[in-house]
């Protein structure tokens, strides 16, 4: 249980012990997260709008969607490539029911009606994905979900009445609600930060709630869970529904930040990028999704200049991403947070104390 020990998730047996330690332990164990949170809250005072929304904000959105994948893969053992698609469904639906530059398609309903409808449709989509892929087991999941993701991509590409074909939708304003214009960088940043923190906390909570524990049991030994009376399929499908809920929130934020959505936003490449984010960050802990996302966005934003500055062709960015991903998969299956943990343990050991 190296995972639980270093990150403060109590293994089952030590839960009571942990409770007695209470606040001081909580503060020390979660110090990195608390400091990071504080930094993110005060970031608008020091960072430019570009860094704020396009780098940090965009990372958090990708992090939210990757978090849904991490939840499924890490706790449920189901590597779904359709999470970006779930985000894409809600993103498309918010433009169809909400506002865009296409009055022929968009219904221009207010945000408090359009957003919940978009989320409900995305959750229904996620549930359907779950029902389908739970029909088979293990490695088939990745094939079926990839096929679903690709089918949605080609649907959005070919369909004009609802999805407006390859052009997609542009000029999708974030709403004006409670007297605040959420289009402006600072409110938008805080909106993203709020939902990122919320989804992170909820996933962390569920991972220790009965449902999350049962899901991890299903991941480790479905037959045994079935034997002691758990409905394995129902747990899996419910996990898909919950993951789609998180992804759909990310999808709506994605549309508001980018101000557009097109087939590429939720295409096969985007789905694969999302898997890369989750795997590179690490599937062992929810924070991995956000770590992977910030690495990915930093690379995407600055790799071109970096590659050129060392005399390489800046257009080979994809090769760089692919190679980095290969290195992680081959040498550190638990991702960057796995490397971080091993380094931390080694430092801890050399200082003559353990991490506990």
């Amino acid at each position: 249980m190296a995972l639980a020990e270093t990150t403060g998730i109590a293994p089952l047996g030590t839960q009571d012990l942990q409770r007695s330690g209470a606040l001081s332990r909580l503060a020390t164990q979660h110090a990195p997260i608390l400091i990071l949170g504080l930094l993110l809250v005060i970031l608008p005072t020091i960072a430019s709008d570009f860094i704020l929304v396009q780098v940090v904000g965009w990372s958090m959105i990708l992090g939210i969607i990757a978090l849904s994948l991490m939840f499924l893969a890490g706790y449920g053992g189901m590597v779904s490539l359709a999470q970006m698609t779930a985000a894409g469904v809600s993103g498309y639906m918010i433009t169809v029911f909400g506002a865009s530059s296409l009055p022929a398609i968009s219904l221009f309903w207010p945000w408090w009606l359009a957003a919940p409808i978009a989320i409900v449709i995305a959750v229904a989509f996620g549930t359907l994905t779950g029902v389908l892929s739970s029909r088979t087991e293990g490695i088939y999941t990745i094939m079926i979900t990839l096929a679903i993701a690709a089918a949605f991509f080609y649907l959005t590409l070919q369909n004009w009445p609802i999805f407006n074909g390859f052009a997609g939708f542009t000029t999708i304003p974030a709403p004006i609600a409670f007297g605040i214009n959420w289009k402006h960088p600072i409110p938008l940043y805080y909106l993203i930060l709020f939902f990122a923190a919320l989804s992170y906390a909820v996933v962390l909570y569920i991972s220790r709630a009965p449902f999350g524990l049962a899901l991890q049991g299903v991941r480790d030994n479905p037959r045994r869970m079935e034997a002691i009376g758990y409905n394995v399929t129902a747990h899996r499908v419910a996990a898909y529904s919950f993951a789609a809920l998180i992804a759909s929130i990310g999808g709506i934020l994605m549309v508001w930040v980018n101000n557009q959505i097109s087939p590429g936003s939720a295409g096969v490449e985007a789905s694969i990028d999302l898997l890369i984010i989750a795997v590179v960050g690490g599937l062992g802990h929810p924070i991995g999704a956000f770590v992977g996302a910030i690495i990915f966005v930093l690379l995407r934003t600055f790799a071109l200049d970096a590659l050129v500055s060392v005399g390489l062709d800046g257009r080979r960015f994809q090769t760089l991403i692919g190679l980095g991903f290969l290195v992680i998969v081959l040498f550190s299956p638990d991702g960057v947070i796995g490397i971080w943990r091993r380094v931390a343990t080694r430092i801890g050991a050399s200082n003559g104390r353990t991490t506990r």
Partner: protein
Amino acid sequence: MATTYHEDGASGVATGRDALGRWIGRHPIAALAIAVAVIFVLWLVLAPWPAGFEDVFGKKRLFINALFNGITLGGLYFLVATGFTLIFGLMRNVNLAHGSLYLFGGYMGYEAGELTGSWLFSYVIAFIACAIVGIAMQFLIFRRMEGQDLRQTLVTLGLSIIFSDLMVWVWGGNAIQIDTPDYLMGPTATPIVVAVKSGGDAVFLQYPRVRLVIFAAAVFIGIAMWVALNRTRVGVMIRAGVDDRDMLSVLGYRVQLLFILVFAFGAGLAGMAGIVGGTFQSISLGEDSHFLLASLQVVIVGGMGSIPGAALGAIIIGCAEQFGLVYFQNYATVLTFLIMVVVLALRPQGLLGRS
């Protein structure tokens, strides 16, 4: 004949007939429905249509063209998917770089064709080039992580990203069309009536010769594979490996060699399919994920690890795509997707797969 392929191959034909008979005996209604459907489609193809029909199905020419395009496209899909399903069946490796192999084969075939001017020779080059890549992948990487399904799949994913970027680097983003050789150019007359002129003369279907020839080649390759799997020693080893890999290696067979052989063959087929695809349509950036998706759908519908399943799935998906394009343009992909959903709901292991 999936059942025969999985059962004792030594008496293939005889058990094949028996198994079919047994299946009909067990599912008389399904067998009757399939027979009626087959006869109906044959009648649709061969007979001139009565007047009311064209109101429902549109012009017969359109219908027949969609059917022929679908079946020949199915031949192409079969070539791609059969390697995918073999590799999956034997090694439990979901090779997500399979689409990249297809694209690479297409490009290599194009280069070979430009260099030598021989269309047939380019197939040899594409097969060898892709087989070498396949051997390298199996020998250098997958051999080291046997039994780790997910990690292998993730590695193929990483490889596919690198491959596609490198191919863009070398060949650019423009579509490349491989020229059809002169002796296969132009249409072939078929004995199928598509319309009757006002004077009473029948109009026969003209269909591109190259597509018919390539489809025949795909059928030939399929039959050759079936024979190889059922009649040769290596085939027996492969089928045994699909059933129980560990047992086969315990019995002293060189499983690693077999894996390399199958990987090379599957990759080589994908490479040859790349030339077919380049001749039918064109090869360009993005075709790798298109054909990866097609392989996935074919294998999910037909049954994972089954060659006859790949053939059936390829025809179904190819026809669904082409009919979708003709009859409901905006929702063509939904049709293939729906087929997949129905198959997963009724037979999660695929039409000819084993549970």
